[in-house]
Every structure is written in structure tokens, then in C-alpha cells.
């Protein structure tokens, strides 16, 4: 069997078993124990006053609802309390540093929210007459222009709704380009260090995924690519800087090898924050690259989404952008919504989503770009790389660097060698950070090192913030050295919840609330 043992204990050692209650309410000061909506709401209560319709004859063709729905309601004050109390259990960028490698958890400017809510952007329908929304097309065109300028590319497919969706778009464009040449290739090269979305995307499109091993310093060797490249390989999916936080210094040679064999270079743009304003991916041979507006360009993570993943395209792939796409029209842009409206040179491979894309995120991203400008973009990349190296330098003597103490880009990768024989795992170390008031860094990714800890401070952290973070990790690392396992076992102790039993959640999935009398019937 393939024995993927990065799975680690996920059932915590049990504590007192009485819910940790010290108060009558179970509350701890400002931390309120908030029941489920379904335990406090009632079907007949509502927080919205809606006109009751006088008798009328419905025209539903007999489809009128006969069953109850099961949706409790709350009044407005109860609703506000319910959600404010829930919000207080969340860590957030506005609370503190997120050292999450690969996520680029930078500050989300509040002006972005104000701009996105202007009625001229938020209260317009994608299908109202085009003559009534020239400013929308103008904004999308302006964002496209900035994205192309930053990346040095010829075109951009704006519609993908998230990074992974953008990956799908870029790879679909590649497949369409090959088909247009009358070719059908069967595999795609993906480094072992790649994010899981890369091979998942390739496999979805029917490609066999061929792993490229990394060399000892964590990067991809052109020789390794040359060995695997052939006329049966559609292309390569590379992240640059890579997921180990290192710039792929042989990227041009790798691009050349792929192109020589008629293949395409897909770049995962997750780490664009390190190089924007310093070098342009288009100049390095990239054919398609998705950009995570929710990473590099500060659109809020919102607890898991929404994202946006526009894909910049080289000349070789520009023609295959899906509908809807922008077409230059003098000083402005034309908006092409259907394949029928495409010219003979435009060969859209299809459509990624209904309507036009994530307009709400476009406004926020462009607002960020205007607020930073060319000078700020370049400075932000430099500060991001500076902060990451400062963290690396501050921890290199107490934590272990898998590729040696060499400069990194915007993120610093450590492994668990410094935890060897201590009985403390990467997971324990990370959970102890929670008690210190920090969200843990990215753990166990990339898979190419053991027990990875990937730290990306971003440019939004002040020196004082990074100093405290480094000091805290040093303190934790010293505890490890001194055998103070108590600090780690059973952490966190001070968060709204202790460690949760993920094994139980997976073995006996309970994925929605059921009324108590129905619980016996709920099958698992």
C-alpha cells in the first residue's frame, strides 16, 4: 500500500468530559456559548416584515408546497446577537498575523468594501442592457489591463470564480489549443511539491499526471524536465516561486524545453506576491497563469470564499479564452458573451460560469491596485520577501530548514527535524501557537518535506509584529528543547474550543441538525 502516514492522531486525549464548565451559563466572560439557530429559532418568528398577500389564485401548476420546510427564524435583535457571538469565536486577519504559507493573508483594505458596495457596481444585473452598464465593462477592462501589465501577458480570461477554477480554465485553454492543432496529448508534468489542485485539475481533463522530482535544494532541474518531456506531454504545471518558497531559477530553460516539444507552460500564480513588480511571468515563458485575487490582491477570505481566479494568457493561448471575454475596441473594450459573436480568430473553448465572473472581487482588487500603484506593488513584494527572510533568520538556529539556511522568497519552509525524538509533532507545535494568540502556519504542506511548517508573513506585518511572532516561536522551540511537552500535549487550552475529534466527525458524519426525536432515525 502507499502508506501516506502524514495522517496523524486526530482524536484528542479526553479531558474532564463535562464540557469544561465553570459558570452557570457555560460562558467565559466575553466568550458566549451560542446554541444552534435550530435550538433557539422558531418557524413562526421572523426578523423581516413582509406584506401578507390577500387571497389570490396561485398559478403554480399544482406544484404548491405541501410539506413544511424546517427553517426557524429569529427577530432582528436575536439575529444580530447570534452572529456577533459566533464571530467572536473566529481568528481573523483583523485580529492578528496569519503566517499561512501559500495563502498570502495580507490586510484587506476597508475602502475596497465601500467601493464594492457602490450601487453602480453592486446593484447592476449581468443581463441588463449593455448600454446601461458601460462603467462595468470599463472597470473589468481596467483590471484586465493592470493584470496584463503586472504579468507581462497578452490577454486575460476574467471569468473563473476561484484559483482552482482558474487552473481549470488555463488547462482547458491548453487542451483546446492542442486540439486546434489536431493533437491530443496524454499527460501533464507536475512537481511533487505542487498544490493538490494542480494534479486534480489535470486529472479532471483526462490527463495522466507525471510527477517531477525536486532536486536536493527543493527546486526543479531542467534535466528532470527534459527527461520526462515529449510530444505526448501537453505541458507542465509549475508554481514560481515554488511551494517551498524558492524561486525556480531555471524557469526559462524549463519553459524552453517544454515549448521545444510543442507543449505549454501553465503557472500556478498563488505566489505572485513575491515577484510582482520585480519580474513578469510572461517574460519567463508562461503561457497561462491564474491569479488569486483573494491572495495577491487582498480580496477578503470571508471564512473560505468567495475567491476569484482570472487567468492571464500568452499570445499562443489568447485566442482560446472562454466566453465572456474582452475585445479591444479603440480606447475601450467590447464584451463578447457568446461564441457566435466571436470573430474567426477568436476560438473560445466554451464557458466557465454563467454570467460574467466575480465583479464584486474585481472592484476590490482594482481598489487595492489603485491604492498601491506601481510603486506600492513593487514595495509590497520587497517587504513580503524581507519579512519572510527576517523570520527565517530569526528562527534558523532553533528550527530546522530542510534546504539549508539560504534566502527564501515570500515564505520560509521549515520541517520537523527539530522535533525529532521529542514526542512533539508539527501538529502539537502548531496547536500551542493558538494558546499564544496566533493562527498556526501552513502545516504538512508541501508534501516533499516531512512535517512541513510553511510561514508567510506578507508585507502587511510591522517589524514589531514580526519580532513578537519570532520571539514566540523561539520560546516554543526552546520549550521543545527543554522537554516541556506539557505545553504542547493537549494544546490548545485557551481557545474557544480544545482540540476537536476529527476522527469521530469522519467516522460518524453528522452534517446537519436533526430534531432530537429524529436522531435515532438518522443513519450514518
Amino acid at each position, binding site marked *: 500500500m502507499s502508506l501516506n502516514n502524514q495522517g496523524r492522531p486526530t482524536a484528542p486525549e479526553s479531558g474532564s468530559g463535562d464540557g469544561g464548565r465553570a459558570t452557570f451559563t457555560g460562558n467565559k466572560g466575553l466568550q458566549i456559548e451560542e446554541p444552534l439557530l435550530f435550538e433557539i429559532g422558531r418557524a413562526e418568528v421572523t426578523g423581516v416584515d413582509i406584506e401578507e398577500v390577500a387571497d389570490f389564485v396561485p398559478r403554480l401548476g399544482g406544484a404548491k408546497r405541501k410539506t413544511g420546510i424546517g427553517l426557524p427564524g429569529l427577530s432582528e435583535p436575536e439575529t444580530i446577537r447570534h452572529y456577533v457571538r459566533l464571530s467572536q469565536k473566529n481568528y481573523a486577519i483583523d485580529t492578528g498575523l496569519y503566517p499561512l504559507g501559500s495563502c498570502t493573508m495580507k490586510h*484587506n483594505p476597508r475602502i475596497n468594501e465601500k467601493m464594492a458596495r457602490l450601487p453602480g457596481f453592486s446593484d447592476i444585473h449581468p443581463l441588463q442592457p449593455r448600454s446601461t452598464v458601460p462603467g462595468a465593462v470599463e472597470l473589468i477592462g481596467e483590471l484586465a489591463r493592470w493584470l496584463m501589465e503586472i504579468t507581462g501577458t497578452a490577454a486575460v480570461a476574467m471569468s473563473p470564480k476561484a484559483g482552482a477554477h482558474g487552473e481549470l480554465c488555463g488547462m482547458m485553454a491548453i487542451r483546446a489549443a492542442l486540439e486546434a492543432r489536431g493533437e491530443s496529448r496524454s499527460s501533464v508534468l507536475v512537481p511533487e511539491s505542487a498544490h493538490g489542485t494542480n494534479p486534480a485539475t489535470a486529472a479532471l481533463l483526462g490527463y495522466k499526471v507525471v510527477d517531477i522530482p525536486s532536486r536536493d535544494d527543493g527546486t526543479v532541474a531542467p534535466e528532470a524536465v527534459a527527461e520526462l518531456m515529449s510530444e505526448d506531454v501537453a505541458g507542465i504545471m509549475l508554481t514560481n516561486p515554488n511551494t517551498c518558497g524558492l524561486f525556480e531559477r531555471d524557469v526559462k530553460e524549463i519553459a524552453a524545453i517544454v515549448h521545444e516539444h510543442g507543449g505549454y507552460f501553465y503557472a500556478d500564480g498563488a505566489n505572485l506576491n513575491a515577484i510582482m513588480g520585480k519580474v513578469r511571468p510572461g517574460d519567463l515563458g508562461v503561457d497561462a497563469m491564474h491569479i488569486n485575487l483573494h491572495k495577491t490582491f487582498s480580496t477578503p477570505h470571508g471564512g473560505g470564499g468567495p475567491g476569484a481566479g482570472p487567468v492571464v494568457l500568452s499570445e499562443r493561448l489568447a485566442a482560446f479564452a472562454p466566453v465572456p471575454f474582452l475585445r479591444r475596441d479603440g480606447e475601450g473594450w467590447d464584451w463578447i458573451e457568446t461564441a457566435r459573436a466571436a470573430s474567426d480568430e477568436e476560438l473560445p473553448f466554451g464557458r466557465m460560469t454563467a454570467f460574467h465572473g466575480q465583479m464584486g472581487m474585481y472592484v476590490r482588487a482594482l481598489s487595492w491596485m489603485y491604492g498601491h500603484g506601481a510603486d506600492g*506593488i513593487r514595495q509590497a513584494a520587497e517587504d513580503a520577501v524581507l519579512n519572510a527572510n527576517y523570520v527565517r533568520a530569526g528562527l534558523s538556529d532553533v528550527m530546522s530548514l530542510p534546504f539549508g539556511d539560504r534566502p527564501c522568497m515570500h515564505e520560509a519552509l521549515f520541517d520537523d527535524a527539530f522535533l525529532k525524538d521529542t514526542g512533539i509533532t508539527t501538529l502539537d507545535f502548531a496547536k500551542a501557537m493558538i494558546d499564544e494568540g496566533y493562527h498556526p502556519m501552513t502545516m504538512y504542506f508541501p508534501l516533499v518535506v516531512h512535517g512541513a511548517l510553511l510561514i508567510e508573513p506578507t508585507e502587511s506585518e510591522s517589524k514589531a509584529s514580526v519580532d513578537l511572532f519570532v520571539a514566540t516561536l523561539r520560546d516554543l522551540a526552546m520549550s521543545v528543547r527543554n522537554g516541556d511537552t506539557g505545553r504542547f500535549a493537549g494544546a490548545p487550552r485557551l481557545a474557544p474550543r480544545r*482540540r476537536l475529534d476529527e476522527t469521530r466527525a469522519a467516522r460518524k458524519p453528522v452534517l446537519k*441538525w436533526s430534531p432530537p426525536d429524529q436522531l435515532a432515525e438518522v443513519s450514518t
Partner: protein
Amino acid sequence: MRFLPLTDDDRRTMLQSIGVGAIDDLFADLPSAERLDGPLDLPNHMGEATLERRLARMAGRNVPAGSVPFFVGAGAYRHHVPATVDHLIQRSEFLTAYTPYQPEISQGTLQALFEFQTQVANLTGMEVANASMYDGSTGTAEAVLMAHRVTRRDTALLSGGLHPQYREVVETVSRLSDHKTIALPADPGGTEDLLERIDDTLSCVVVQSPSFFGQIADIAAIAEKAHAHGALLVVVFTEAVSLGLIEAPGALGADIVVGEGQSIGNALNFGGPYVGLFATRQKYLRQMPGRICGETVDADGARGFVLTMSTREQHIRREKATSNICTNSGLCSLAFSIHMTLLGEAGLTRLARLNHARACHLADLLAAVPGVELLNESFFNEFTIRVPGEANSVIERLAERGILGGVPVSRLLPGDEALADLIVVAATETSSEEDCAAYAAALKEVLA
């Protein structure tokens, strides 16, 4: 610059600690020929006031839906979103929180997701729902892929009532993942014989109800036939409010219910971000794509919530994942959930009745305009009318008179003569009596 806390002094000190002379020493691996010597050819940073002015000018060129009589639907609907919703989703701890992979400090997001999943499952009459997809159209494509996995067949039958852009998305994904689709022609009259086309080659039958043209389908009959042939029934909806009045697809035999949640809690936003709702039967749980939140306990025995069943997902299974999807629609699903909480069952039912009543009223007014024909016998809050002449020209002339009267079908289905005189018209609780009267009057004028 206001967003960058490091000062030049800080930078100097830090470079010293790192042991390099200049910042570009940390960029040494960048190829020298392509390295940028100076900033990009773009404007420098703008202060907030300048930035605001620029974007406000762009926004000012657009006609907001709320400023005119507005009847545009076709998959996205203008409803009133209570101020409470927008206020709550802007709380820092919701807005700027990461994906809840560290559950101990993400119980706010996770409990809200658990409540959301319950609301969606109950609304659709299904046993389990996920934490949301990007939107209804991509959710539909994922539903089709899921049906292929469950049945081990590779062909999907798409009703002619399916939103044309949803169909295009499904066809794109199918073609490029080597699956097949059979799409019936556009069905404005609700007269297609879908049952006759169901056979043993199909993994699923995909039906939208209410359809793109507003027609309400006979879900139970389609379910029976599909099941008799070993196929799954995928029911799609684009107007979530309809489920406040129309029978739940789950109660009628649907195997997967997928749709657009934008109507509840989310603004029109020119097409995105939206929120895909996805629900299915318990027995297909492992094949369901997307994030899922589940209930458990912590080390002290306190109830808590976690993302679960992650081994279906890309970050674990990589090329064997059920989907490549990474995000859900986070904040949009929270907005949906908050609005649904404010509405409650009583409020949603009332809202749905009001929508339907307004649409009935408008349908009567428009049908009374000489030359206009109403195609639907049944509908929820959206219906199709036939006008004399080209529909898109009628819409343009209505716009000139300050009425946004709906969507000409030819905008999404160009080049089909038989559809060129059709308009899809939506009415919601925001369509006042005056608006409806103004529409009818303007239409009469335009057609005279």
C-alpha cells in the same frame, strides 16, 4: 504608504539581521535579463479620496437596478436584502477570517456553515448539503460529474428548460473531460417530451424548475422514469425564493438538487460573487464535491464543528479527488444563512407568496397589451412573453424610456429565429404597483 507598515529604518535593520546588503540580494535567483529595474508602467499609488473619485465615476456610468422599474431575472434576481445581513458579514471576524482549517479558532465560521448546510438541506428536501459551490452553473456541472461517478455512465440528458449559460458550462466541462451531453432544444413553451428521451445510457437527467422560461416541471414523473432506467435526477433552480412556495425537489424524487442561492442575502453584483447550493442523498455523500462541515466534540466534551470528509478533496486526494474545487463561497453562504435566519419559514413563505402575486399581476398587465402573448400557464416569479418584432429591440426601446423590462432570449441564444421575439420577465417583492403599471404603459407605447 498607508498599507505598508515597514519604515526605511526597519528595512535597514532587518536586512542587517538577515546578513545581506540590499533587498535585491534576496531576489538574486531572478534571471537578470528579465528583472525589472524600476516600477511597472502603471500609475503610482493613489490616496483614498482620489481612488474613490475614480471608481465612483465608473460606477456612476451604470444604471442601478433600484433606480428604475426593474424586471430583469434569467438566473439572478433583485430582492431586498435587510441591512442586518450586510452589516454582519462585514464584521472583521467573518470578513477577514481564513478557511476554518484550525477549528479551535474558527467555530464562528464552522457553526454558521453547519446551520447553512441544514437550511439548504431542509429547503431542498434533501438529506445532506455541502458548504456551497461557486454558483449554480458550476454546481450543475459538478452534479453531472458526480452522477457519472455514481452510475459509472458518461452521458447526461439536459432539458431544454435549463438556463442556456448553465448548459454551456456543463457542455464545456463535459467535452473537455471526455463525457457526453444530450441537450434538448430550448423549450419556452414547456412542451418538450423529456420522458421519451430517458434511457439506460444516461447517468442523469438534468431539469431546471422553474425553468429558464419560468415553467414549472413535473419532477415526480421525471424522477420515476429516470430511476426506472438507473439514472439520477438532477434538479436545478436559479431562484431560491421559489422553494418557499413550490414543493421541494427532494420530496419529489430528486437525487441531487443544485441551484443558485444569490436571491437570498446577496446583491446582483453584475454576476458574482454568487453562491451555489448543492444537496444530495445520504447514500451518495462520499461522491459529493466541495467542503462539508460536521459536528463533533472537543477534548473537554464540548460540542464543536469541523470540516470533515476531507479525503474527497483535492488537497488530500490530488488527482483522485471528487473535484478540483478548493474554496466554497464562504461569505456569500453566510449572507444567505443570515438572511434565511431573519426570514424564517414564515417570512420565506410570505416572501414567496408576494413574489408570485406580483408576477401574476404583472403577467396579466402585460398580456393585456395588444400584440403581447404570455407563454406560461404556470410560473413562480418569472415568465416568458412573445412580442411582435425583435425582442432585443423592444428591450432597448423600453430602456430608453427608463424601464428595464427583462432579458431578450436571443441575448443568450442568438441566431435562433424562433426565439427572437421572446422576453423573459421577472417580478419580485421589489416590483411595486407603480413599476408594473409603468412597464405596461411603456410597452404599449413601444409596440404601437
